[in-house]
């Protein structure tokens, strides 16, 4: 059994918006990320997946709950102490155009993390690392003297990946890493990431709103809605046999195994504002199966089978013969 590399226990992140309201960007989520796997995190924009990623990299501080990395509680660790972990936890950002300083040469940018964390390295050694890193991500070493403006989107994203990997991390949060790239380039980058994962034994948290990409990359997938995890399971379970009505609707938009299109479930209504979340189940306002219980009680994650959980009052273990209270079948096709 794989050990958990990263664990979140009931983590909450609250903001105060301009109108002095409390906004729960992340509302008490708990999950484990196991060493060597890719956990995908999906959801609509504003569901809190990016925030989760930022919390893990210590760009944000959790309001409550705990985050454990290799068993150590890093939730409220001071920056100085966390410095030691920085090399282990890295992030790849979404926008390859904005996330690299356009005024600096690529070589300089790649050297910087080494300068910060590995003072014992001499200049020559650093240069050597930089060149190697460029090769690893598939760029010629002459790129170290170029400026970001001279690179294409795909090439820049390779640099982002290089930047993340140059410190030899064990855990990488990839926040929409290919969303800003052309479809043709996306495949290249994704394959690069997969290859690197194998080579270096990396653990990924792969955040995206693109379901096909997530399915392709992930071993397990977590679905978020309004700051909570509504379903989490293996890639196959989630993609093809989703139990939670939201997940079903979500994945109804992606292609079927055999390439055929599925029947789209179109949800009524808009996502509620995170500053004013609905009572009970956060999804109840749009759920076609909403009942009174849903309106009053917030469902906890219930185990459907090993490793597969959903937060819904009506999607627990199905017993044979029992008609589910909900008119759907496991294929995710609405009746």
């Amino acid at each position, binding site marked *: 059994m794989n050990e958990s590399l990263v664990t979140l226990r009931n983590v909450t992140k609250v903001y105060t918006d301009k109108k002095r309201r409390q906004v729960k960007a992340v509302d008490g989520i708990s999950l484990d990320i196991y060493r060597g796997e890719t956990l995908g995190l999906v959801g609509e924009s504003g569901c809190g997946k990016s925030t989760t990623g930022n919390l893990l*990299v210590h*760009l944000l501080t959790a309001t409550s709950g705990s985050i454990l990395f290799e068993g150590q509680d890093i939730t409220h660790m001071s*920056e100085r102490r966390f*410095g030691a972990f*920085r*090399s282990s936890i*890295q*992030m790849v*950002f979404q*926008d390859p155009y*904005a*996330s*690299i*300083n*356009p*005024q*600096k040469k690529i070589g300089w940018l790649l050297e*910087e*993390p080494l300068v*910060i*964390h590995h003072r014992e390295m001499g200049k020559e050694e650093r240069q050597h690392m930089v060149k190697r890193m460029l090769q690893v991500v598939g760029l010629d070493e002459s790129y170290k003297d170029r*400026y970001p*403006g*001279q690179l294409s989107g795909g090439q820049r994203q390779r640099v*982002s990946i290089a*930047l993340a990997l140059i*410190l030899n991390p064990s855990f990488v949060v990839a926040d929409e890493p290919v969303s800003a790239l052309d479809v043709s380039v996306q495949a290249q980058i994704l394959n690069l990431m997969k290859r690197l994962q194998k080579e270096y034994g990396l653990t990924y948290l792969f955040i995206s709103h693109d379901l096909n990409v997530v399915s392709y990359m992930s071993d397990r997938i977590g679905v978020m809605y309004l700051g909570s995890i509504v379903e989490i399971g293996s890639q196959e379970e989630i993609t093809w046999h989703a139990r939670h009505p939201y997940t079903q609707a979500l994945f109804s938009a992606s292609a079927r195994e055999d390439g055929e299109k599925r029947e789209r479930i179109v949800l009524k209504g808009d996502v509620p504002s995170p500053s004013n979340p609905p009572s009970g189940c956060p999804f109840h306002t749009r759920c076609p199966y909403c009942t009174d219980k849903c309106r009053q009680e917030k469902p906890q994650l219930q185990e459907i089978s090993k490793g597969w959980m959903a937060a819904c009052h009506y999607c627990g273990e199905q017993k044979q013969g029992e008609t589910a209270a909900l008119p759907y079948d496991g294929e995710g096709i609405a009746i």
Partner: protein
Amino acid sequence: MMYYCRKAGGLLVTLALVSLITFGVFQILPGNPAYIILGVDADPMQIEALEQSMGLDKPLYQRYFSWIRGLFAGDLGTSFRYQQPVSQLITSGLTVTGSLAVMTMLMTVLIGIPAGIWLAGHGGRKYSVGFSMLSQISLSVPAFCMGIFLINLFSVRLKWLPSIGYISWAEDPAGCMRSLLLPSLSIALGSSAVLIRYVKVSVTNQQKQDYVRTAYSKGLRKSKVMYRHVVRNSLIPVITILGMLTADILGGSIITENVFSLPGIGRLISVSISSRDLPLLQGLVLYLAVIVVLCNFAVDLVYSVVDPRIRLK
């Protein structure tokens, strides 16, 4: 190459137009320079003699063209008022105004940039409000008012600094700095307020950029992030405003120079207008136009050196 040729051509056209307009305006304005110089009770023969030496007895177009011709030979004519070559007067005025500009810009930059960066980094509500008030005051109090206040404080009461006069650098560097300190300060207080705003906005914008987040994620501390990434990048748009400020000061602050009795370009301008000294004014106008163009050009040049994005286009 073509680019520079076109720019130069544009400059020439601008200068020609500007000189024509100046010339024209003076013909419309009432006022005979000979009278102004010699005074109300001057002997009519003296007036005539002076008018002749000024060439005022010749027709308009002749005067204009002889001026243009002189221009190509590098001769800007002789000032009516001072009876000296215009180019000489402008050069000596430029020495003063130039020194003033250097000192003022130095102060402006030394005050403005650190303050702007600090404000962007620590811009809590109370600091912002306090700063806004202060900068409003600095901006609304005119430079000469500030000048008079400073004179009163430093020259009259404390007797630390001279209130009038200019000592050249060649003559006495320390004295030069002392004589320029107050005038520079009175201008710099206003211009640094402008600069602080620009810097603050620029830095704040840069701080929001994604690459800053990247830097933090690599473990860079805030101060290092600011210095290595943010500040360098945010100073680039500030170059434009610096160029503008420099051109402005080099144009000679007429009132400040009057208050401090500095014999600079500003003084020359006000004297040339009130004494209808056409050759001097033409020369000055030309000088001003050239300064503006040069400053713009310098800004472009600095940009191309400092900002790789522009260099590589």
